Structure formats: structure tokens, C-alpha cells
């Protein structure tokens, strides 16, 4: 991966897609911030990386809108961590954003013809 490529993706795509990424990741179970950051990097094979300064404001904003809900959880032998889970409102937003994203990607594909044959 080139630094520039990743940087551009960072700036342009994160804006529209970051919310979708996070909502998807807490869909099946609650996760804490570090785990979310790790999963994004892992599943995007290192293409996407959120640093601390942008990940957490994002989480707080989503929480603020009532789409996810954070809660401090203490597990035996560990420090307490803040786990975020999807709320009912968040589920609806996630469904809508997925559809939008699919439409968007299909539109891009049709225009650029980059698609798999």
C-alpha cells in the first residue's frame, strides 16, 4: 500500500463510510474501541486505519445520535473497558446505509467498468 493511496482513501471515503464501518462491526456483538480499530485494519487488510484522534470522536458522535450505546464493563482479571453496542435506531440506520453503499458501489462499477466480468 502506498502512503498516498491510503491517505486519499482515509480522507475521501472515511467521511461517507466510517459510520457504516463502525455500525457493521458492532452489529453482532458489543466491542470496545481498540477492538473496532483493529478489526477495521485487519479486515481491510491494512488499507483502512483509524487513529485514536479520529476513531473516538466518531464513536462519541454515533453514541450521541443514539445509534450505538457505550457502557463500561468489568471482566474478571481485566481492566474495565467501554463496550459499544448497536441500538434499535442504529440497526435501522445501518440497514439504510448498507443499501446506499451497495447502490453507490454498483453505480461506480457501472461507470468505470472495473467490475469483475
Amino acid at each position, binding site marked *: 500500500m502506498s502512503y498516498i493511496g491510503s491517505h486519499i482513501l482515509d480522507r475521501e471515503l472515511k467521511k461517507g463510510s466510517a459510520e457504516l464501518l463502525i455500525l457493521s462491526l458492532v452489529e453482532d456483538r458489543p466491542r*470496545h*474501541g*481498540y477492538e473496532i*480499530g483493529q478489526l477495521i485494519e485487519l479486515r481491510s487488510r491494512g488499507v483502512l486505519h483509524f*487513529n*485514536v*484522534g*479520529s*476513531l*473516538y*470522536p*466518531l464513536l*462519541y*458522535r454515533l453514541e*450521541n445520535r*443514539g445509534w450505538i450505546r457505550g457502557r463500561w464493563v468489568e471482566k474478571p482479571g481485566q*481492566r474495565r*473497558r*467501554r463496550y459499544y453496542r448497536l441500538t434499535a435506531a442504529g440497526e435501522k440506520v445501518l440497514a439504510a446505509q448498507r443499501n446506499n453503499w451497495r447502490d453507490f458501489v454498483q453505480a461506480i462499477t457501472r461507470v468505470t467498468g472495473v467490475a469483475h466480468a
Partner: protein
Amino acid sequence: MPDFKDKIRARLADLKLSPARENEIIEELSQHLEDQYEQLITRGATEDEAYQTALLDLNQSDLLEPELRRIERRVHHEPLGMGADRKSHLLGDLWQDLRYGLRMLLKNPGFTAVAVIALALGIGANSAIFSVVNTVLLRPLPYKNPERLVMVWEDNSKQGFPRDTPSPANFMDWRDQNHVFESAAALVEISFNLTGAGDPERIDGQRVSASLFSLLGVEPQLGRAFRAEEDQPGGNHVVIISHGLWQRRFGSDPGIVGKPINLNGESFTVVGVMPRTFQFPTRRDQLWVPIAFNAKEAGERGNHYLEVIARMKPGVTLQQAQAEMTTIATRLQQQYPETNTSIGAVVTPLHEHVVGDIKPALLVLLGAVAFVLLIACANVANLLLARAAVRQKEIALRLALGAGRARLIRQFLTESVLLAALGGGVGLLLAVVGLNVLKRFIPPNISQAHAIAIDAKVLIFTVLVSLVTGLIFGLAPATQAANFNLNDTLKESGRDSAAGSRGNRIRGLLVISEVAVSFILLIGAGLLINSFLHLRNVDPGFRAERALTMKIVLPETRYADKEQRGIFYRELIRRVETLPGVISAAVATNLPLTETGNSVGVSIEGRADPAPDRVPIVITRIISPRYFETMGIPLLKGRAFAEEDKAESPAVVVLSETTARKFWPGEDALGKHIKIGPTNSPNRWLTVVGVVKDVRQFELVVEPKPQMYLPFTQANFFEPRALVVKTNLEPLSLAATVRKTVWEIDKDQPVSDIASMENIVSESVARQRFSMLLLGIFAGLALVLAAVGIYGVMSYSVAQRTREIGIRMALGAQRADVLKLTIGQGLKLVVTGVAFGLAAAVIMTRLMSSLLFGVSATDPMTFVTISFVLVSVAVLASYIPALRATRVDPMFALRYQ
């Protein structure tokens, strides 16, 4: 492990988050960085590399602060938490409002003091009067099921006695024939000379039916109530004494029951002691003996002297009881036409009888203090409005920062309720002090007067009044704040804004209502003062100055016949008249204004006996020779009595002028004859030898009724019991000497009710003085408050119009013009207020017509005078601010803002 917390904290420092939230974010972010650090280490990085990489991740983004600022601020102001969280915010807000309000009040001590004083006066007056009303009118009588207790009267309206005291025979028929009462009891006043152990003493008490105590549902504290057999002649030498008498005279002797005491020279056995709180019918009564009618009394139908109390059966209404009694009375009319023609029966609640005629006065006073409080409210509302104008900047700022209007209203109301609570607290203190003063003016014959105090009910009343007060006077400023136009205020100075002119309108309305309400109060007070002056100017028919009076009742057991009593009186008068400083002395049955009763029916020589209900009734006084000169009653015609009018001399009588005129209109009464009883009765004919001026015998407010005087040597029914001494000294300074003189003649003879005649007169108008004094005080208070209110509004308005006035003066307006303008503005408000007050007063003063004497409820003099007083005060109150307006320096005013 390196510490990232400080690095994070440094980046968050500018955000000024709440400490708790800041710590949370730091904890979460540092955990993230630590996790990253550890992962880098496990992948083989050096500690320093790992630390630098993690730090880079934190520092790479400059979005952290702006993002957080946007999100967290909003979190702070609009908490997402719903439901359960809301309540804690309400409470939290309240606490915040309270603290804020308290700070605002402390910051303006002058404003706070004025407001609290005004409210304290209003609330204190309300609490004080309410505690009187509570005790006297509201508290149930201290008897079992008191709502079922009634008084039963004879209705003799034909002769002017709609509630006459029943006769024994009528009472017994009522008692035996009715089906509506559980029981009925009769009582009649009696007093005894209590002798043995200590000074002889006159004790007031009652002869009562044996059933009285069980009827009331009160048990003696010691011993027992009377038995039925003790209510028979011969078995009645038993007595129940009051707690007070037991303590005072018998040293609270626990073994008193069964012991004999000496009453009127006879031995009575004490069978009971009543509880401390028991008083019946009045506090004066200290002992009770069985009424035990003898055969003669039991047959009396034409002598009316009992009081009758009855307990209605459960479920019987007053109307049912009245209907039944009317039926019985009608039957008795047919059965005994001689005595019972046109005599009905009236049933009235005991409570009404006990509360008596103080009720209208108390209700008027309660209304008056409510008015005073309203005026105080208007004043404080004015102050708050003026202050709200000053606080426009603060309100604008808070609105701009996102405070909701509802929240602002709440803040304002919290402040005013806080103010009212302070006022209520101080007011309660004032009420405690005021009540102690008030008690001295409460007429002594008011039931329960001694029990008046601030109790739980009064406290609750005060708290409620304070709360409501705070809401009332807080509402105007609060709604004004809520309707506040943010843009106008930010654009302009706020001085000329729409909110300002609406504020002026509200302030104007408040002044108008203040003036109207104080006008009503002043009219009420004016009418009462006028009545009282009339009352004091009533000619009672005698001269009260420098006359000493006392009661000396000779017991029949010691002075069995008229001869002995005559010897005592003559000796007493002779000895008293030799005392230094004494001009003359006399005895009489009843002194004016002390007791009612002693009236007889008479017949006139040469005229047929009228129908039983048309017999002329004449108040009769039995007197010694120099009574008229001692009492200062002017002799109009003929002569007074003299030593020569002995028992065996021709029977004589002196009439009052009204009697003489009524009996022989246009003729000379002297030498004419009347007789007590019908013409064919065995009584002697009495020759009229003199005519004296009318005396107001019963009450100053009652027009004199027919009255006559008989010499004590010749009359053999009523006995003299009062001594009156005319002196050139201070009357009461003579009391001890006179009493000693009595004891020189008979060491066992009690003397009681020592008073100067002036005292008796002034006591007889105690109720009127009480109402007049209080209403006068409250009206004065209202006037002062209203004046302060007008002054405040005018000062504020002048301050607001400084610039306008400056321009006018710069354009050539003279001081007189400015004065006219400013005072005119105040006058307009006041005259409008007076007009409204006038209209309301015409209606409202009618409610107090029963308290008035000699003036009509719409007395034009009072209305004109009060209007004049109020307008003058108002002009004065607006003159001072107006004067200030004329001193405005045009240059300063123009530059000013």
C-alpha cells in the same frame, strides 16, 4: 508501560469538559494507546519505537479537539438520557435555581429587604387574623359531637324578642313532648357568696339540669356529674366546681370530693371537679348546682329567664327540630293563651350562639388582610418587573446560550417563591408578636379567646399563603421574561423596546389595582371609625365620669327579709358618703350597660288591659334616693326619691321621658298612676312623681326602651346588688376603702366586679373598638403600601424617561411643565384606581352594614374624604420622582445611553 494519560489530558485541556467526562475519555483513549504499544512490543519493536508509534497515532489527527468540542458541548446541554434521568434534572435544576435565586437576593439587599418587609406585613397580618378565625370560628366546640348541640329559644318577636329566654314550664313541656332531641337541659345564672377560709368571694355559676354534663359529653375530672334525684328540691345541696376554682381556692385538694363548702351561708357538698378546659357557658362560670325547680318555678310560664340547650338525635336535621318545636309551641299557644299568645320556639346551632356577633367583624377583617396581602403582592410584582427590566441583559445572555423559556420562567418563579418564603417566615414572627398585642383588644366575651394561638393549621395556612403569594407576584415578571424578544434586546439598549412598554402597562395596571383595593379598605376603616365616633358621641343618658361601681349581692340566707337588707344598704350608703372624696353614693338593681333583664309588664290607670302580647314592657330599676345625682341622670320633671319614701308611704315611681310620652302622649305624666301586672292584680297603684332622661340601659347602640325607677324601700321583687359612688378622686383609688367599709358592716359579705363607670362604658363598645382598631391599622398599612407602590412606579418611569424629559427641556419645556407631565401621569393611574375602588366599595361595604352605627354603608362624607386622602397621598408619592425629573440636566440626559 509508559503513561499516555498526561499527553491526552494536555490535548483535552482547552475543551473544559466536565471532570468526570474528561477522565472517562482519557481512560478510554489511553487504554487504546496502551493496547497498541503492547502489540508493537509483541511484534518485536523496542520500547522507544513502540512509544513513539503510539504517540504518533494520537498526534496524527488534528480532528480530536474540534470533533470533541462539537459533540461534547451538545452532550452537556442536551443530555440524551431520557425517562429516569429527567427527574434528577428537575431536582438538580431546582437546587440550582434556589442557589442562584438566593445569590440574586443577597446581591440586592435593599430590594430584598423592601420586598420581604412588604410580604411579611401582608402574610403576618393574614396569619394573625387567621389564627383568631381558626380558634373562634373554625375550631369545633370542645364537646362530644358538637354539631348536634342546639340552643332553643322562645320566639317573642311581637314584643321585640326574637330569641327570648324560655320560661320553666315551657321548657319542661318542650323537653317532655319532643321526639327530635336526645336530651335537653336548662340553665340559669346564679352567683354565690363563697365564705370560709380566705376572703369572702362572689362566685358566678349556673343552676343547671342534672343532665347537662352528659348532654355535652364531658365528664368531671374528679368525682361525678349530678344524679337525677339531685335535680329535685331538697336534694340539691351539691355542687360541681371548675378546675380554676379548685386550684385557686382549694389548693387542688385531691380529696375535695365529698367535702362541704359554704355558699350563701349554706353547706353544699362538692361532688365533682370539671377538667381545666371546660367552660360552660362562659369562662366566668366557676360552679354548677342542680337547677331543681321548686313547685312555684315549675308552674311559671310567664317568667322567661332560662337558657335551654339540647342535643339532637342522630340523623335529625336542624329543620326537622325546628318544625317539631314550632308544632309544640303552637299547641302551647292554644293551651295557655294567657301567657303563650304569639310565643313560638326557635332552634339555633350552639356554635352560632357561642360565636355570637363577632363573626361578621372577623370575616370583614379576614377580607381586609387578604386585601393588604394583595397590595403587598402588587408592590413586590412591581419591584420584580423593574428588576426584570434591569436584568434584560442577563436574560438575553441566558436565552442566547440556549436556556429554554420554560426554564427561565421556572427560574423566575423559584426566585419569587423564595422571596415569599422569606416573607412568610418573617411574617410568622410578626404574627406571633402581633397576636400578643391583638389578644389585649379581643373582647373578653368572645368564646375561646384565651385559646388563640399559632397552631399547625395556622402554620399550614401561612405556608400555603406564602406559596400562592409567590406564584401570584412572580407570574407577571416571569411571563414578561418569557415573552422577551431576544433580537430587540441585542439590537437596542432595551430601554425603548416593546417589552419595556408592556412592562409599563403591567406596572400601571398594578398601581391601579393597588389604589382600588386600598380605597376599599380605607372606606371600610373610615366607616368603622365614623361609627365608633358616633357611638362614643351617643348620649348614654348618664354621666360616667368619676363614678366607682361594684357588685354587692346580699345572700337571702343571711338577710332573709327586706327590713334587714334595708338596714344594710342605708348603713353602707351612710358610711361610704362620709369617706373623704366621696360626693354621693347609691345602690341599684342593675347599672346601665352591665346586665340585661329586669323588665315587667305594667298597666295604666283608666285603661282596659290590652291583649297579652300588647302589654307594655318596662325596664325596671330599684334604686336608693340619691341614685340619679350619683349617676348624673338629669331629672326633667317632678322630684327624685327621698328618705321620706318609706315602705308604708304612698307608692311612687319615676319614669323615663320615653315612657311618660308613650303612656300619656301630650299630657303631663306627673300624678298619673300605673301598676305592675294587670289592672286587677293585688299590686299597689304607683304615682308618677318624676320624669328623668332616657338611659341606654342595655347597649349604647340600642335606642332607649321604656324604663321606670322604684324606691328600694317599696319594691319587693328585684333586689339592689350594685353600689355606685360619685367621687372627686380617681374612682378606682377609692375601691379598697369602700370594700373595707363593706367588711366593717359584714365581714362575710363579698364584693366583686369593681370598675369605674367609664370602664363599663368603654367595655361595652369593646367589640366595635376591636374591629375599628384593626381595620384602621390594616387600612393604614394598605395606604402606606400603595403609596410606596406609586412612588416606585413613578420613580422608575421617570428614570426611564430621562432622555425624553431632557429633550423636552432642551426644547424649552419649563420645570412646571415637566412636573405637570409626571404628576399627571401618576394622577391618571390613581384616579382610575379610585374610580374602580369606588364602584367596588359601594358593593362591598354593604357586607359590613351590621358593623356600622349611625352611618350608612355609602356615607358620602366618608367616600369623599377617603377619595381626597388617597389622591393627596398619591400626588405626594409621585411628586418626589417628578421633582427629580425636573432636575434632569438636558445635556446629561441626551448623552445618557
